[in-house]
């Protein structure tokens, strides 16, 4: 019996009536859905953490090298004999060998065959003079811009999971087509696209400064393009946000259908 009518087809009642019914007698499949959602959330966070960690680990040598250079510079402030050698920094270059793809300009000794074999390098770390404090050139200013951009990248990397977790908390409460969820998804999409462009800017600055500093006979300095997957992910997330927005409009219409 419901509202005094035993023969009322509940399926023809408004969504609010159905909601009241389900809140008293929750079907089992709702619990299974929240378990699946929780599992997917944890999986996504784990994959994201592994992705960030693996990129950090792969760059660990570069990080440790930079740290060592920095601490050498700090120690040399009191010791004037070491100052000159400490005023150097490491430059990271992406290289392309010569004009032809079959060019191998260098050689390396293969201990297993005791012979020298041709080789070409696609990356290099060069220890060269750092910029002085008095240097006001465009080169130094461009290098200084790398620091705030790198900090911005770090902020983005932290913000993306924050919005993702906020979205999942809302989904766990069975609130799907909500303005706050749409806002979260849009922010995630925008941050992913922004991350790509910030990486692109940093790569361009590094490329330009390397071009100003170095020129090699056998190699050309390459511009390292960031992975396009970031911008693709951003666009896909924005697409889903738009789908969610359309869904929310349809839900509003459905809620106001008596």
């Amino acid at each position, binding site marked *: 019996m*419901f509202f005094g009518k035993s023969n009322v087809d509940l399926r023809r009642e408004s969504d609010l009536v159905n909601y009241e019914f389900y809140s008293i007698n929750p079907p089992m499949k709702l619990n299974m859905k929240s378990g699946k959602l929780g599992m997917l959330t944890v999986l996504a966070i784990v994959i994201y953490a592994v992705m960030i960690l693996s990129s950090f680990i792969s760059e660990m040598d570069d990080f440790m090298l930079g740290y060592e250079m920095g601490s050498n510079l700090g120690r040399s402030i009191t010791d004037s004999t070491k100052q000159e050698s400490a005023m150097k920094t490491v430059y990271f270059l992406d290289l392309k060998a010569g004009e032809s793809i079959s060019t191998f300009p260098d050689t390396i000794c293969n201990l297993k065959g005791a012979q020298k074999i041709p080789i070409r390098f696609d990356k290099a770390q060069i220890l060269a003079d750092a910029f002085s404090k008095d240097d006001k050139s465009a080169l130094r200013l461009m290098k200084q811009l790398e620091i705030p951009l790198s900090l911005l990248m770090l902020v983005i990397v932290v913000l993306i999971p924050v919005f993702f977790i906020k979205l999942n908390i809302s989904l766990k409460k069975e609130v799907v087509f909500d303005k706050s969820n749409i806002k979260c998804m849009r922010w995630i999409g925008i941050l992913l696209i922004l991350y790509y462009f910030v990486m692109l800017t940093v790569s361009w600055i590094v490329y330009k400064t390397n071009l100003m500093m170095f020129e090699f006979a056998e190699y050309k300095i390459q511009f390292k393009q960031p992975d396009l997957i970031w911008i693709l992910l951003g666009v896909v997330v924005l697409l889903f946000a738009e789908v969610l927005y359309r869904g929310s409009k349809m839900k509003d*219409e459905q809620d*106001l*259908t*008596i």
Partner: protein
Amino acid sequence: MAIIVNLDVQMAKRKISLNDLSERVGITPANLSILKTGKAKAIRFSTLEAICKELDCQPGDILEWNEDVEPDLHLHSP
């Protein structure tokens, strides 16, 4: 919306309250209030049938089209 809901007029004629009518029709008072205040976007035939049955009136007594009122173009927007 260009469609005007005159439910309150019919309810006053029959001297029936919102809660009573909602109970008899089988919808919540909140939904009936949405319909009465003209905020509803659509109405099911089953609901209209139930209301007309309880109020002993025609659909035209409850729903009226007025060309002077601004139509709700949002319904047709993508």
